[in-house]
């Protein structure tokens, strides 16, 4: 495990020129795109919701697109504030939950397993 112990310290380049990767004035999302997103996210949204969400997502995305105004071409992205790397533990068997306890919370169970709806079409 690697832990630097000190916070990364860097100097800002305040003079950098804005780089308009995203133009916040034209960021727009259509109703059809929202329907596509809902499908990707497995949300069976209603027609009424599509109308509401399309307007709201348009406003939100237009606002957050401001990040594009910051000149950051040479800046490393931060994924986690505390840079820990390669956190490992010994490969040893520890206590785990009993199957009956886990299955007791499942919406549907069959033969000591989670029962799921069909995942293949008939012809598959």
């Amino acid at each position, binding site marked *: *495990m690697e*832990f630097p112990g000190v*916070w*990364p*310290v*860097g*100097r*800002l380049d305040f003079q950098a020129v804005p780089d308009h*990767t*995203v133009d916040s004035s034209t960021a727009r999302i259509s109703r059809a*795109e*929202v329907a596509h*997103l*809902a*499908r*990707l*996210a*497995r*949300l*069976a*949204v*209603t027609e009424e*919701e599509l109308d509401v*969400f399309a307007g*709201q*997502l348009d*406003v*939100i995305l237009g*606002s*957050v*697109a*401001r*990040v594009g*105004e*910051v000149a*950051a071409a040479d*800046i*490393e*992205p*931060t*994924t*986690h*504030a*505390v840079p*820990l790397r390669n*956190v490992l*533990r010994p490969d040893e068997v520890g206590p785990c*939950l009993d199957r009956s*306890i*886990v299955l*007791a*919370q*499942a*919406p*549907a169970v069959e033969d000591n397993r*989670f029962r*799921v*709806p*069909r*995942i293949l079409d008939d012809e598959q």
Partner: protein
Amino acid sequence: MSELTRLSAAEIAGAIAAGEVSAEEVTRAHLDRIEQVDDVVRAFLHVDTDGALHAARRVDADRAAGRDLGPLAGVPLAMKDVVVTEGLQTTAGSKILEGWIPPYDATITRKIKDAGIVMLGKTNMDEFAMGSSTENSAFHPTHNPWDLGRIPGGSSGGSSAAVSAFEAPLGIGTDTGGSIRQPAAVTGIVGHKPTYGGVSRYGLIAFSSSLDQAGPFGRTVLDAALLHEVMGGHDPCDSTSIPQGVPPVAAAAREGAGADLTGVRVAVVQELGGEGYQPGVLAAFQEAVSTLRGLGATVLEVSCPHFDYALAAYYLIAPSECSSNLARFDGVRYGLRVGDDGVRSLEEVMSLTREAGFGPEVKRRIMIGTYALSSGYYDAYYGQAQKVRTLISRDFAAAFEQADVLVSPSSPFVAFGIGERVDDPMAMYVNDLCTLPASLAGTPAISVPCGLSEGLPVGLQVMAPALADDWCYRVAAAFEAAYVGTNGPLRAPELIGGAA
């Protein structure tokens, strides 16, 4: 109201250790208080009367047997419903988990149980911790004890309201973009967001994994510090947990109570104030800065130019991570399942389940995140937001070369009316303006009550470098000592007798 519910956690623990009162009496007093006021405050989703009394009796038995008691043994606590508790329903404020009984304890749940802290029940919250008002709870809103028509902040508004309303002296919240500090501010209590990785996330239902952090609520800085020491420390079950001990926060709170900040450099952040902030909030903040100066602190100003982009970066990063984290709610292993008629496919059942189980704010954020992570948009949105996050950390680093702590208001506003902002997501998001930079940088920050505006509490935020949580507590405790010495403690109205 029983005097026992007026005491601080430290006072309660002292009285129990000295045998002046039993843990069971203390617990019963707080359960009675919940009985009296929670039908109007509605801080709790579930009160665990039997479990609480059982835990209290165990503390009393330990004391009778001469066993060592921890510094908070027998003190009641309100637990946010995003923290899993074995055998006790945990919903994260969502219909999709209604009725779910976790088969294990979160690390912090285990730690508070081991410390003899008495968990009274699970508190209300914005669904999956997404919100700043607790109005996004799938179950009911929670009411601010200072004015029942107003919000208690969020997302940890159930815990903040419970502590403010004397239903519990301690509370646990989680803070992803301000969800401990903003509710603490608007209900007039203390709330601290630890350094990211300082408190285990194992058993926290994940919203945004790179930002989520659990922390303490109390009515005093010392109480919050004592709880922080119980919660914190390395946990092998959380790979992002910092492999170090807890900073000496209780000692710092005690030192700070001496009300001497001679030689401490306090910087006001230029970007966290001015336009968009309520005048009463800014006035209380300016007064707080004068108080800090009066305690001997050197006050200066710093500029953190990228803080202006924190809101935009946050509302890309958090939704992106949530869209991934909430994929686990698929109606297969636990929670709700809708539409499983033997004919519909897995994908259809999943989509119907998530449609029925998630509220509108959760759906909005999942879709924003799905969009921001899409091929073709990733670099412009999520990738760029992560770079801005780096720049915000650098702003902090530069500021901490000049100052020991940074200060700002904890929220631009006092508590607003229930229902006022629910239809306008952006109006809700700006509640987090002051708290987001420390979330993105992973640095610690505390909110301590600093006065009233329009009769409603205002919070002072004190931010410190990573791992220096003790600095937050030291400065907050010094401020608290000075404020309480002059004005007396901020205390919410009694709420009994025509309270509703």
